[in-house]
């Protein structure tokens, strides 16, 4: 099948969505399809320009393909008779972010027209699609709530599962992913006071130098700097995998995350239990307390107790880790299964 994967791009911005785009094209090819990727330049400011962005998408004419897989607003508005959406997110400033005052669309008559135009354009794109998948239950719920369209959840799988083979636990708890206030690595540093003897490794790129500095200062203030390793940089995948494979457990505490999170999947792929928080959103779709990890309130004492408990019983931690890998397999979170569903 000749498949075109379509998304948007903001020059020099590269994150999870861009990774997913690249790996989707790659894995389509691995599964024997002719696949190409195309990304439309996109900018959301000023809000008035969003209409032109949609218009550009609607104006694009495709030829020479069988299936179009579109990922993001407004790329999913490009017309094609055999179109499947895998919506990572809509233009959230016209939906849930608007409701909480986080939108660039002004609350004026013109702003309301722009809003209506976006919603009409979305409805048009959803209506003409053969199937709609989303990356997470929350995305599906929003689409149902705001647009009235049903969709199925198709979680993005790990891009390089072969790296996360698992291994002997070396006694540290690992916190991966971007470092910022929303990911709450600071809670883990504070929790160490309540987990005597437990070692913590924080490995990931800080969003800003201030984020890195704040974490270093906190470790000193808490008097746990001798038990914390702060490896604050973009960690190459092989290094990261080595750290995960040697961890006792992975701690991942985002606030109200949409998806499972790559950190969760990497941990489970390596058969490591995940420590998370009761308000971590999509992570809770797969992490079960005392089954494949720990789910505790976002309090240092509670987190510390959870960390200490796992550190004290490595065999139990290993059992939970294996249960995590089973949960991943049950979800079918692998590229062959995902590609199969997208080209079906």
């Amino acid at each position: 099948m000749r498949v075109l994967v379509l998304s948007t791009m903001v020059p020099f911005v590269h994150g999870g969505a861009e990774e997913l785009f690249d790996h989707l094209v790659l894995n389509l090819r691995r599964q024997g399809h002719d696949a190409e990727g195309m990304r439309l330049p996109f900018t959301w400011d000023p809000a008035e320009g969003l209409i032109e962005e949609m218009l550009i998408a609607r104006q694009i004419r495709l030829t020479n393909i069988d299936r179009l897989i579109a990922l993001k607003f407004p790329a999913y508005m490009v017309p094609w008779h055999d179109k499947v959406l895998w919506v990572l997110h809509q233009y959230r400033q016209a939906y849930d972010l608007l409701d909480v005052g986080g939108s660039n669309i002004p609350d004026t008559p013109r702003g309301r027209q722009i809003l209506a135009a976006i919603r009409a354009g979305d409805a048009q794109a959803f209506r003409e699609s053969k199937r709609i998948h989303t990356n997470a239950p929350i995305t599906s719920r929003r689409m149902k709530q705001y647009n009235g369209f049903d969709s199925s959840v198709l979680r993005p799988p790990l891009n390089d599962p072969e790296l996360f083979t698992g291994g002997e636990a070396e006694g540290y708890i690992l916190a991966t992913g971007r470092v910022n206030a929303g990911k709450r690595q600071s809670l883990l540093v504070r929790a160490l006071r309540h987990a005597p003897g437990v070692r913590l490794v924080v490995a990931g790129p800080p969003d800003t130098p201030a984020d890195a500095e704040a974490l270093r200062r906190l470790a000193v203030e808490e008097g746990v700097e001798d038990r914390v390793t702060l490896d604050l940089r973009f960690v190459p995948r092989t290094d990261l995998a080595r750290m995960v494979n040697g961890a006792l457990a992975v701690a991942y505490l985002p606030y109200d995350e949409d998806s499972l999170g790559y950190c969760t999947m990497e941990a489970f792929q390596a058969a490591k239990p995940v420590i998370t928080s009761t308000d971590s959103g999509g992570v809770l779709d797969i992490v079960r307390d005392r089954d494949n990890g720990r789910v505790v309130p976002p309090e240092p004492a509670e987190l510390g107790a959870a960390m200490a408990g796992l550190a004290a019983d490595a065999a139990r931690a290993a059992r939970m880790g294996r249960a995590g890998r089973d949960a991943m397999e049950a979800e079918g979170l692998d590229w062959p299964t995902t590609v199969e569903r997208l080209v079906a």
Partner: protein
Amino acid sequence: MRPLRIAWAGPWNDRSAIAAFGEGMAAELAARGHEVTVLRTEVGEFADLPPRPAPGEVHPMDALGDNTIEYRFDVLVAQIGDNYNFHGALLRRISPMMTVGVFHDAFIANLFHGHVHWSGQPELLSTVPRELYGPESMAEGEPFWTGMEEMARRRPMLEWLARRCAGAVAHAGHYAPRLAAACPGPVATIPLAFEVPDLPPLPRPWNRMTVAAIGYANPNRQLDQVITAIGASGTLRGHCRLRVIGAAEEAERARLTALAELLGVAPPEFTGWVSDEDLRWQLRDVDAITCLRNPVLEGASASVILALASGRPTLVTNHGCYAELPGDTVLACRPEAEALDAMRHLEWVQANPAEAAALGARGQAVALTRHSFHTYADALLPLLEEVTRDRPRREARVRLASLLEGFGLGPDDPATRRAGAVVDAMGLDPAKVEQARRIAAPAFRETA
């Protein structure tokens, strides 16, 4: 100029003056190398009237699909007159991409009313005028029809179709500005062309005088004023009669006959509808022709051109398209004093036959030059060429507007105007490029 593939949409029967115009124009355009296909727009029983001769194919317009028309022709020249029976099939086929509307009338409320009636959408009678002319054009609960003069002033409905055309033709200057304001494309003012060859010469002066009215006799033609003029003059009464060459309702015949009797005037003659051949016969002893109208609802009048072409002194209303004729070629009557002016003019014709004949000859020269098919084609073809040349850009604009309409944004939305401006700027016209810049810039100033 390269040959154009022209779809000429309009009535094509012997009863319609617009069809007569069409026949002459189709022949003229074909003689210049253009491919002319006639698409008949009559509806109901009128679609079955025998067709006029044509230089190319003749089809009922409904027999051709939109796509066929779009691909087969460069331009659709749509004849728009105020008669649903003759023009009904055209209404849903006017395309903003390729239609040049030839507006034979400045008032098309009858056409609109017919459309509303036959499409079964009575609500349009109030919503469309209010949308076009504002709420004051039609109060809540007000019936659509009122006096003709008031209708012409408050809701002539010209804009209903003008705004859907890619270009437009007015036959007189008095309504050209309205067309230009409503039509998004170019508008030309071209005097109507009409030719009837072999008209009988002006008869020799005699002690009796015949005044003819040509065409459908309705109260708008002010024939009662002509009868009053004859009756009011001692020299005309008993020596002058009115001949109505054309169809007339029984009530109108009775009204005019009763008036003549009351004023001691010879009863008017009614010929009923006549063929071109009969028309020539009926004109053989006619000394003058009346073309009065009040109010003036038409864009131009074929009958006044015919009258001028016949070389006979012609009474016209000094208003609307009639006021645009050269003053030394017609006998102008003030709208508020028609009978008085008509009386004075007819007395002058009676008393000064040589001067009246000279005036008729001047009128004839105007008819044969200003109102010839040749002159009309010279003015029409550049407009058709311009509309054809701009068609790809217009198609792009329509497509963008349609996409934006899918987002719920109408034709007046700033985004639609910006999209149109971007398309306009894809050319060499510096004025349009500058205009596009002005329209598009404010929204993006922050990112400039």
